[in-house]
């Protein structure tokens, strides 16, 4: 009986519990574990999500939608989308390049390179912003260059001064800080995937006379497209929601250098709770879409593997 149960039932993950698992914990242990797990999920995940939408709709539909007509909100939305539109493609190109050289070739210092790519995840968001202030701020190298009496590259200096080209407390700083905090997402998704796939298919393509770009676009890209998509949605979610790093470099100029999360902070600190939560609900909705897409990709991957 035990034999047949083990061999015939429960190979699919959904039925894991019914057949294969001969030994189980006592019922009371299961009940306690489930209760603790659900309480944890409810208190830390479900309630915050519900709170965002409830608080946003506290005064009804009208004030909720009115929050989105505020010109400062619209400019924050525009800035967030602009930032994402630069940061995500930049890290996408980087991720593909890094994964290509790491997965398809052997060279010294490869594991050091992988560690260095992960470095931004170990850095506090606040410090991620701070380091750009140190490089580009008024006291930093860039600021000193602008203030220099006899600057190197005088034409560049003249142009920068004439344009009043600011990096810190301006949009370029926000984009740079966002690129920093989302730096590893695509690369760390693609590197293990491409390492696992190896180089056989690319070798075959090259042997059959394909050139580099043809090999890349027709062999490699179709193989990694889901991993690529997975990395991009995670990168996108973080880029839209980044707060600490952007807060340090932004300067909080209303309608000019406020991203959506920073706008939430301003509204909240002004006790404009409905508007703060209305903007938050938009961001929370985006987070939910991210989770759905992520689950779909994972589900697809597990189906292909199984």
């Amino acid at each position, binding site marked *: 009986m035990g034999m047949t149960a083990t061999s015939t039932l429960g190979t699919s993950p959904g039925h894991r519990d019914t057949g294969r698992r001969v030994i189980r914990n006592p019922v009371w242990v299961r009940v306690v574990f489930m209760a603790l797990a659900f309480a944890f999920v409810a208190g830390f995940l479900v309630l915050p999500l519900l709170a965002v939408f409830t608080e946003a709709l506290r005064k009804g539909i009208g004030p909720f939608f009115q929050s989105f007509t505020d010109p400062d909100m619209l400019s924050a939305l525009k800035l967030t989308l602009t930032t994402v539109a630069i940061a995500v493609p930049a890290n996408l190109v980087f991720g593909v390049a890094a994964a290509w050289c790491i997965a398809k070739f052997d060279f010294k210092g490869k594991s050091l390179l992988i560690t260095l790519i992960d470095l931004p995840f170990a850095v506090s968001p*606040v*410090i991620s912003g701070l380091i750009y*202030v*140190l490089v580009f701020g008024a006291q930093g190298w860039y600021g000193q260059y602008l203030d220099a009496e006899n600057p190197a590259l005088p034409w560049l200096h003249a142009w920068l001064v004439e344009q009043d080209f600011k990096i810190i407390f301006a949009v370029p700083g926000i984009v740079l800080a966002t690129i920093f905090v989302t730096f590893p997402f695509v690369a760390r998704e693609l590197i293990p995937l491409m390492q696992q796939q190896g180089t056989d298919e690319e070798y075959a393509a090259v042997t059959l006379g394909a050139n580099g770009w043809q090999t890349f676009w027709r062999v490699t890209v179709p193989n990694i497209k889901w991993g690529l998509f997975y990395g991009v949605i995670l990168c996108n979610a973080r880029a839209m929601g980044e707060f600490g790093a952007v807060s340090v470099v932004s300067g909080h100029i209303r309608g000019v250098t406020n991203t959506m999360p920073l706008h939430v902070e301003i509204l909240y600190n002004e006790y404009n709770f409905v508007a703060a939560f209305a903007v938050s609900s938009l961001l929370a909705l985006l987070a939910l879409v991210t989770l759905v897409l992520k689950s779909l990709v994972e589900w697809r991957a597990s189906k292909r593997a199984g």
Partner: protein
Amino acid sequence: MSQALAVKLPLFRRRVLPGFGLSLGFTLTYLGLIVLIPLAAAFIKSAGLSVGAFWETVTQPRVVASYKVSFGISLLAALTNAVFGGILAWVLVRYTFPGRRIVDALVDLPFALPTAVAGIALAAIYSPNGWVGQWLEPLWANGMVKLADWVPWVDWKSWLGAKVAFDRPGIFLALTFVGLPFVVRTLQPVLEELEPEIEEAAATLGANRWQTMTRVIFPELMPALITGFALAFARALGEYGSVVFIAGNMPMHSEITPLLIITKLEQFEYGKATAIAVVMLVASFVLLLLINLLQKWSRRYYSV
């Protein structure tokens, strides 16, 4: 000779696939410009301070108090995540129940939800008139009074916080939230790989369920559990966005180190901000190193 050179300098070896120089060159340039040079700037800037000035800045009472708050509460939050995240991972892998997929997907919410949104949402729930806060707040205050009665020589209110939201417990809630996915996501694959035959063997050899759990299953999970714990701890240490809305931010009491860095920056004390940042950076790099070593160790552990 040329053969030897080619082996020694892999950059010049003839390769079948194209694009090595281009992709590595681009990778290194981008990594240097975006990550390494700005990070080096922090160290160079703090090197501009004399050793004495650096030491004085990073050991000021208010700064030391912020380390205690940041490290202490991050540790507590990571431990909570190790226990409850462990249970959650177990429930998700071993038990079937309706909505398991949804719960599984929700675990990643702290990665996807902007930290500022999480911060104001947690503040709304746990503030004195929030859904949970309205009954937790009196309970907490009452508990502090009881504790003070039983153990009067400890100043419980300044240790644990007089309130839930806008005090130390609030920081704990926010840091637990941001670290929640790490333990679950590092444990899940290990639990899924765990052969039921091992448990059956243990049972056949006369172990009861408790012995099987503690002596067979738990040691198997240990490396992943520690890795998840360390990742949650590292994340909590640097967290800023979700904490500031619920911490109360009282200097010497509920001020986290990242907030102190921002405060120094807003006062244009760049040198001091950088010095504190360097302490935090060194702490996170040490943690990163430990995590890497742990993962190497656990890979060896599992391959045996």
